């Protein structure tokens, strides 16, 4: 690691974390891509209006990349660049709420399991064993089979598929915290359980939970797009990335550009979340650095 010029002693833990994160170039690139994605979601309409991605033009169908159509056009002559650009929104609309709610449920159940040990923990672990015996993708498939594929149902499906892992992560983090001296100290001067949970355990677990959330975001991005790809997620007229690829399947020989660009968008999104997650983990706990 680079020698620190400034003494770390004068910094607050948060400043220290930010400083360490900013020293990690790879993670900064990841963060830049994430910020770019947020920028695209907010200002996508100004970069290239949604209209361009819907407007059909049969004379311009299946064109390769050009100055006018950066990523080329699809079978209906629609601009792929615009469709990929606006696809960001759909993926994030599913991935963000699903990840966030899964983490919140994880924190609540994890805290309960760590505190009201024994019976609650036992039951929770048995239930989790059952849920984790079903591969996440299949759990999501079963939910879509029951409810049907739509944006909202996909959030539910991803949520159900993700909760077991989040609860397990949260539980192990909280269990490791409960054994710490400062919790014993707080308990010894008479803090009640809810005070311990909300003032000590949850704030101290947040760092690790944010790391797991960023990495989950990457996993869910991949899962959402694969659900749409197999035709059980967002359906084609909507320019979701997986749906774009699903539509492009029949043109795999004649127009490979239809496949390359949406795929790179998914790859970059998942990669950047992973990079930010790795960087945060290293910044929060430098001992974990390899």
């Amino acid at each position, binding site marked *: 690691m680079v020698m620190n010029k400034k003494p770390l002693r004068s910094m607050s833990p948060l400043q220290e974390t930010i400083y360490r994160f900013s020293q990690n170039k790879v993670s900064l690139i990841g963060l830049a891509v994430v910020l770019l994605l947020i920028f695209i979601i907010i200002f996508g309409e100004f970069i290239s209006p949604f209209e361009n991605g819907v407007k059909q033009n049969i004379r311009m169908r299946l064109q390769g990349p050009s100055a006018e159509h950066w990523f080329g056009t699809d079978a209906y002559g629609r601009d792929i660049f615009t469709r990929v650009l606006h696809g960001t929104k759909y993926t994030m609309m599913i991935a963000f709420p699903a990840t966030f709610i899964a983490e919140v449920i994880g924190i609540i159940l994890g805290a309960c399991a760590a505190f009201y040990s024994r019976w609650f923990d036992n039951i929770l672990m048995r239930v989790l064993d059952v849920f984790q015996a079903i*591969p996440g993708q299949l759990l999501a498939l*079963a939910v879509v089979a029951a409810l049907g594929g739509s944006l909202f149902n996909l959030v539910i499906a991803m949520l159900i598929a993700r909760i077991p892992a989040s609860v397990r992560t949260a539980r192990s983090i909280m269990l490791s915290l409960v054994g710490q001296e400062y919790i014993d100290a707080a308990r010894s001067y008479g803090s009640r359980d809810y005070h311990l949970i909300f003032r000590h355990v949850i704030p101290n677990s947040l760092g690790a939970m944010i790391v797991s959330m960023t990495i989950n975001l990457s996993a869910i991005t*991949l899962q959402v*797009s694969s659900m749409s790809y*197999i035709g059980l997620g967002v359906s084609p007229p909507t320019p979701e990335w997986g749906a774009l*690829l699903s539509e492009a399947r029949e043109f795999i020989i004649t127009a490979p550009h239809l496949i390359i660009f949406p795929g790179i968008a998914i790859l970059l999104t998942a990669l950047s979340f992973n990079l930010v997650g790795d960087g945060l983990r290293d910044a929060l706990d430098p001992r974990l650095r390899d």
Partner: protein
Amino acid sequence: MIKYIIRRLITLVPIIIGVTLVVFTILEMTPGDPAKMMLGDGATLEQFEAFNEKFGLDKPFVSRFFNYILQLFTRFDFGTSWLTSRPVLDTLKARVPITLIIAVSSIAFASTIGVSLGVISAVKQYSKLDYVSRLTAMVLAAVPVFWLGMMLAILFALKLGWLPSSGTGSWKHYILPMMTLGLPYSARILRSTRGYMLEAVRQDFVRTARSKGVPERYVIWKHAFLNACLPVINTIGVYMGGLLGGAVVTENVFGCNGLGSFIINSVKRKDIPAVTGGTVFLAMIFALILLAVDILYAFVDPRIKARYTAKGAK
């Protein structure tokens, strides 16, 4: 050892019952009347009633569930398809070998590449090879499986013409699915192997072995690697769930008629018993794989083995 295996097998029973309950409950939430969905609006009232009676839909949820569990454990019956009226198990039996070939070959492929490159990467930390393999692994871990499949198909099937891009027939058909599913997991295995190896080579016993003059090759493979092996095996087991889910998608990309495409098609046709059967069956395979990993773990780790062999089983 046998006692350990039997004990682990018995713990599978409640898991399988639980899995069935979860899948049953989720699919119970399907809106609409199954008979109407399957037979269409044109069918007569008698036809509806006959359909409901045939598939036990006239009975309440709890009795259907217990009946299913009973059938499953006594006769290994996974229910009857609404669409074809044939036992789901027949289809499962025909299709599971394809899924197993894809899953097993890709995990073997992923473990071989991931573990060997992971060890080399850790031993030669900060070398060029280390950077290149870590960078590749980082990208591959974020690649969507189906997209990788399409790209590999474009390269090897369409441009080079070396391999067939869809179907199942010869061993050649399985190479692309194996690479598609194996590459992202080899990346994940590489990352964790590297991490555990780095931890292992810093241990005192490794320094002791070196100072005794043990050749470097033995230090790495016998002392460090054997100790890093345990968490690596564990990680590979954890990845199996994702890998089986990925197999479902991979089959779809390459048009393989395995368990995955069966489940996907059944979801699309709203053939609920087929979805239930397929999902429970795949979960059972997953549970058996995890069991195999645990047994392997016990074999590799002398501490666990000793507990079960020395003083009799506890």
